[in-house]
């Protein structure tokens, strides 16, 4: 499958369960969540709030059920995935409770909204996948259906009557009392589509090409024009997102994921180069054609300009987030000790800025470490996964996680323009949380399959054997 040159570390993982380690880590995640709520209450009100028990124990019970389910349903799965995800989910719940409490007259009346319900729904989705998607490779059959699903999900919000704009971004749909952000699910459908499409086409994309040489050195290996079709479609989709939906974040996320998976499938950096050039070209064009793109860039560059700050839709939110992080400094103000609740979208897009303010640089680095750990465990699962489809699917999911964190925190901390995106597991909102847990379900299933010990014979002889799975 791989093997280009140097000998690599073994990719197969030993069939160790380590579920007890998972249990210990899960308990720590629960305790941190409860401590977060308790400290928030002490800082805000001088008392340990009852929510430490109501919210904390509800979350604890959900985590406990998840852990027990793991023991039965995916006993060989990577033991770090579930506690890392629960830790992030729990910190998010504690932070959302703390932010809500600041807007309540009596903090005992504060809740976490629907976040716990969505956590439960997310976990159910996760385990439904673990139980019913016995072999994720069957998803290969639905290559173009996945593509269709992804596109339909992306387009849903612009259907009149169904679409629902929140703060100017046309990203939501509204069915009855529920609002959903279908792009969160679209990215999963897209990863599935890409995994199966690239699986079948990768040899063509990998091998055929025309090298352009400077002297003896191959500068770039250009693919055939007709093989450019998929990248062109992906590019058009990304630009379309940018222009029609005005959603820079999703556009960036989808196209980046596409390039990453294309690279994994083909191992050809020329694809990445071509893609980046196309994206840079498209983005530059969009910059000159559309004022909302220009406004974003202006906010990014001239964040601390008085006029940009005071403009409608200007840099105020960004500045407030940065000022909050500056107040947090190295060790933070303590949960509930800061002014994080005054920043717009403090519990969703800006939840990492809230963490930075109240848990300080130390806390934010810790959260990033856990996110990084989750990503790298995902990549590790991809290495050990059986078959190219599973590898593509798993590495795609792991990359989406990392890339999404980069887009959102990079926006908040001015590495890239602020685009508005959700932080996996932490941001308030059902769609994002469900999507994150669905991705974990896929990871855990593939991991469990990969590490499950090989079928063992239960008789000693004969060509036909009875095996136990």
């Amino acid at each position: 499958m791989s093997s280009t040159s140097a000998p690599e570390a073994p990719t197969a993982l030993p069939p160790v369960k380590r579920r007890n380690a998972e249990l210990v880590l899960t308990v720590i995640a629960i305790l941190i969540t409860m401590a977060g709520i308790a400290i928030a209450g002490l800082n805000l009100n001088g008392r340990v709030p009852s929510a430490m028990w109501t919210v904390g124990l509800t979350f604890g019970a959900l985590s406990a059920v998840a852990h027990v389910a793991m023991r039965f349903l995916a006993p060989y799965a990577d033991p770090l995935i579930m506690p890392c995800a629960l830790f992030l989910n729990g910190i998010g719940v504690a932070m959302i409770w703390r932010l809500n409490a600041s807007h309540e007259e009596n903090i005992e009346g504060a809740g976490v909204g629907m976040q716990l319900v969505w956590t439960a729904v997310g976990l159910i989705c996760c385990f439904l996948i673990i139980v019913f998607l016995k072999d994720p490779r069957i998803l290969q059959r639905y290559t173009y259906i996945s593509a269709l699903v992804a596109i339909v999900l992306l387009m849903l919000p612009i259907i009149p009557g169904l679409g629902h704009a929140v703060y100017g971004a046309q990203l939501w749909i509204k069915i009855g009392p529920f609002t959903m952000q279908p792009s969160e699910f679209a990215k999963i459908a897209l990863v599935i589509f890409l995994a199966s499409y690239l699986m079948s086409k990768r040899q063509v994309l990998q091998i055929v090409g025309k090298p352009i040489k400077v002297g003896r050195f191959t500068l770039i290996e250009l693919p055939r024009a007709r093989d450019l079709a998929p990248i062109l479609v992906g590019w058009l989709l990304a630009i379309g997102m940018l222009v029609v939906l005005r959603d820079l974040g999703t556009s960036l996320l989808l196209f980046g994921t596409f390039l990453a998976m294309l690279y994994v499938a083909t191992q050809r950096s020329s694809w990445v180069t071509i893609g980046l050039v196309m994206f840079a070209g498209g983005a530059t064009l969009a910059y000159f054609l559309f004022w909302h793109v220009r406004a974003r860039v202006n906010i990014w560059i001239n964040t601390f300009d008085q006029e940009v700050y005071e403009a409608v839709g200007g840099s105020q939110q960004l500045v407030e987030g940065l000022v909050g992080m500056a107040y947090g400094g190295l060790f933070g103000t303590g949960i509930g000790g800061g002014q994080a609740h005054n920043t717009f979208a403090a519990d969703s897009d800006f939840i990492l800025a809230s963490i930075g303010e109240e848990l300080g640089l130390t806390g934010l680095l810790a959260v990033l470490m856990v996110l990084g750990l989750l990503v790298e465990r995902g990549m590790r699962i991809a290495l050990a996964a059986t078959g190219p489809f599973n590898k593509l699917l798993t590495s795609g999911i792991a990359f989406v996680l990392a890339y999404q964190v980069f887009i959102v925190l990079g926006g908040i901390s001015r590495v890239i323009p602020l685009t508005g995106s959700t932080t996996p597991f932490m941001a308030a909102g059902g769609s994002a949380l469900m999507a994150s847990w669905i991705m974990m379900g896929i990871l855990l299933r593939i991991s469990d399959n990969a590490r499950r010990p090989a079928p063992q014979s239960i008789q000693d002889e004969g060509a036909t054997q009875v095996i136990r799975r």
Partner: protein
Amino acid sequence: MNTPIRRLSVFALILIGILMLNITWIQGFQADSIRADPLNRRTYSERLSEPRGPIQVAGENVAFSENVSPEGEPARYQREYTGGGLYTPIVGSFRTYGASGVEDTENTLLDGSDDRLAVRNFRDIITGREPEGAQVQLTLDPEVQEAGYEAFAGLGGKNGAAVAIDPSTGAVLGAVSYPSYDANEVVSITDLEDATNNYVALENDPAKPLLNRALNERYPPGSTFKVVTAAAAIETLDASPDSTMDAPDRLSLGHDLPNATPGGTCNGGQPDTLAHSIQISCNTSMANWAIEMGGTALSEQATKFGFNPPEGEELEIPLGVTPSFAPPEEDRNILGRAGIGQSNVEATPLQMAMVAAGVANGGEVMRPYVVDAVRDSDLSVITQTSPESYSQAVSASTAQDLTEMMVLVTGEGGSGTNAAIPNVQVAGKTGTAETGTESTHNWFIGFAPADDPQVAVAVVVEFGGGSGNELAAPIARQMMEAVVQ
């Protein structure tokens, strides 16, 4: 396929690593400068929840904080001001997005964050008492301040400024800048937009109500500067009030310098005494005195009164004072005009009040100040300003000579009779400064009583178009009367 996966995982780590480095930069290294950025609006808004100390004039609150939250909700303090625009030039305003005046300079004491309050704050934490800001007591005398402010209001549409100082201490008794504004209009925390709009309107107002003319606007001082010229003549040329100097009806200084007196003569074209030159404000003789002593002598005398402060040592009372200038001139024509307070000579009203106060105080200029004392909420004194000498501008005998000459100004035949107060000897000097436009600035500086000075004043009416005696002297008289009667 594992090689690209490994590379992708390294790339994912790099992405996270970039974020880690960047937030370390922001939260670890840039935190201070971000907090100090003017767009950090927390410094003001977060203090809305803490009671800010009052600013007082003569024991009465002129600025104070009041809780405007409904019962049971977290406290939100609205800053309120009394007196309309009366005290605004000194007191300033404490807005959501900034502060001015004493509200700005004494901010850390008013909000309780100053180091000098650290012990008390620590005690409050232990005893669980709600921390409160300190109260700032100003030197202003409400009667003086009102007399000046109302006199300007009575002029009908003319701008200007007036300063009154206690010559023996330097305490500022009055600091009027007209027009002013009611600080209540720009500090509302319940209607932020209204407050912002009002502030923008003030910023754009051509009458510049936000400018504190008393401290921060320079005008040519005109003939009031002749006091400085006379001081230098006595000090450096050993002149006396009886010393004479050529006083032609016209003096050629590039183009002719006329005499300001009606009829255009000082002493019929004959040499005039210094005393008479001051009394009637003779231009040509005073220009000749300046030329006689030379530019350096004149400039150095002005410096002793407070002009030409070294860079970085500009006066703070604690409000910043714009420096006044009287540079050493070499050109005879320019120097002659400098001797009568024109050409490159420019002074703030406070500076000219310091000139009058210096003469009044036996030649010693006291450092002006507006904050008398800062007291804790339990009234214990945190800081108390003690009078401090700024300089010995002239000798006591020179000051005596100057006083005698200035008394003539308000007496019969003088140029500033409108400043005379019945039964009180008033020393003064008028000024009518050319502005390069049709109109003139009209000045008066002086002090009373001449034999035991309790108040020194400087008044300027911007583009008054009249004479110092006509427009400025009555304002000065009313402010002095508020002290001596």
